[in-house]
């Protein structure tokens, strides 16, 4: 791998940038691998990278039905945070924050991690109480959290409307070390770094079946033929139910669709991330200048990567209430992605009842920020054949045993998490 640096940039400028090598190879699949990762999204690629880097397992293939990073890692709103209350979640996401901070250096790829702060707005007394409690819990867990008054928020985001609205802003809980990262670069950076350590990226190759004998997985049937594997890890959020159906498993997951959108690009106007759970809107500004925002899922089961207009209208209405100045902007693009909504709003990283088959699923709409931590823990789970300490409560059987991790406490209603 040619290292990216200011010197390589200058060197390549001399021959008009015509001699950059490809970021990763495109090999044909070998007959057998030590580990196959199904799903070439952020989580699958991160898993492959940490398998090679942390566990020395390099005979690995990532199998992707489309192109690398073409699913949810390309469709999210790029927000990175770890403001969780339950210990089973908090330390896992905080590990992610540690990895995010050094990720660009680690991968030799600029993921543009920008810890610009994430502010959750409170719009009534009950929310103030709940957010302060959350902040206190976070601080007890060693995670940064700061209560902000309306004046402090106004100073940070001058265009934010806090008074002239149906539900005025009472304050907000800020995680100063949260922020955003360039989503595509995360996928590409992990792919390039994993490839450099010998991992094969097999694109345009859909898994069509699983070969399981005597309760052990032997490999996967694909559109490029059978590929054998000692271990198979599946990280295909959005389609987990479909892929595990091939292994005869039903999951505590429903697939739902989430929309997001961007405005036309404008000069810097918002240098933090503002979220309002009450108004159903979260918004940040990309480095290109587009305002990136989203809100609720569409509430009904769906595998369509596109949604309905009422939700777009709902999100835009909320955004215009929070930032009246942005009502003049044109909407440039809207899109949708499909996600695993788990029954308690928490992901699953675990072994399965089938020997040597591993599951990474149920990310609801919080998968992007977890990409490094998810890869870290899933790689450990696959390599050691047991869950990592940080994901030890994210078990597949927690619903059966009554150990659900329900951050919001809304029960088995996937579309409410």
């Amino acid at each position, binding site marked *: 791998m040619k290292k990216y640096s200011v010197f390589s940039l200058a060197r390549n400028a001399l021959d008009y940038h015509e001699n950059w090598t490809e970021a990763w190879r495109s090999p044909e699949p070998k007959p057998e691998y030590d580990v196959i990762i199904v799903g070439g999204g952020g989580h699958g690629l991160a898993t492959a990278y940490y398998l090679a880097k942390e566990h020395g397992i390099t005979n690995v293939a990532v199998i992707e039905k489309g192109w690398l990073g073409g699913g949810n890692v390309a469709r999210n709103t790029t927000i990175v945070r770890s403001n969780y209350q339950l210990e089973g979640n908090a330390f896992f996401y905080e590990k992610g924050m540690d990895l995010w901070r050094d990720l660009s250096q680690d991968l030799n790829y600029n993921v543009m991690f920008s810890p610009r702060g994430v502010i959750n707005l409170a719009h009534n007394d009950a929310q103030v109480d709940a957010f302060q409690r959350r902040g206190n819990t976070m601080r007890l867990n060693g995670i940064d959290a700061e209560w902000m008054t309306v004046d402090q928020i106004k100073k940070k985001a001058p265009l934010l409307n806090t008074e002239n609205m149906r539900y005025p802003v009472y304050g907000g809980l800020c995680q100063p070390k949260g922020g955003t990262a360039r989503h595509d670069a995360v996928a590409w950076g992990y792919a390039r770094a994993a490839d450099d350590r010998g991992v094969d990226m097999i694109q345009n190759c859909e898994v069509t079946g699983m070969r399981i004998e005597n309760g052990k997985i032997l490999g996967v049937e694909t559109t490029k033929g059978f590929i054998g594997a000692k271990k198979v890890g599946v990280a295909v959020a959005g389609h987990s139910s479909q892929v595990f159906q091939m292994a005869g498993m039903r999951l505590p997951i429903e697939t739902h669709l989430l929309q997001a959108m961007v405005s036309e690009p404008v000069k810097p106007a918002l240098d933090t991330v503002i979220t309002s759970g009450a108004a159903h809107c979260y918004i940040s500004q990309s480095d290109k200048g587009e305002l990136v925002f989203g809100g609720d899922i569409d509430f009904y089961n769906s595998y*369509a990567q596109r949604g309905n207009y*009422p939700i777009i209208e709902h999100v835009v209405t909320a955004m215009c209430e929070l930032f009246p100045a942005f009502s003049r902007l044109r909407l440039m693009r809207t899109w949708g992605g499909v996600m695993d909504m788990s029954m308690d709003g928490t992901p699953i990283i675990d072994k399965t009842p089938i020997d040597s088959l591993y599951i990474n699923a149920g990310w609801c709409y919080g998968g992007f920020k977890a990409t490094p931590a998810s890869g870290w823990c899933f790689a450990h789970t696959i390599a050691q054949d047991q869950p990592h300490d940080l994901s030890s409560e994210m078990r597949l059987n927690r619903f*059966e045993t009554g150990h659900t991790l329900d951050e919001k406490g809304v029960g088995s209603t996937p579309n409410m998490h």
Partner: protein
Amino acid sequence: MLIKCPWCGDRALQEFSYQGDATVQRPAEPAEPTDAKWDDEWYQFVYLRDDPKGWHDELWQHNLGCRKHFKARRNTVTHEIADTGPMNEELKGGDK
């Protein structure tokens, strides 16, 4: 998306709320309530879903209209609705 309420006819999506999978069945009460099989049936009823990619029988409520619950057979890829009907009737249509 237009949804046909069995009592009110075609109405806009905003008038409805989604109430989940219509195929899961509440387990019948067993003779012995400590039956482990009953635990498993409840686990499956509360938590496990087929989550099909294609035709899906589901529950909706016309909550900004007549407020009645009804069943719909909707395609989770195209969002096409093949049939809607009262809770006690079988749905038709779709490739199911």
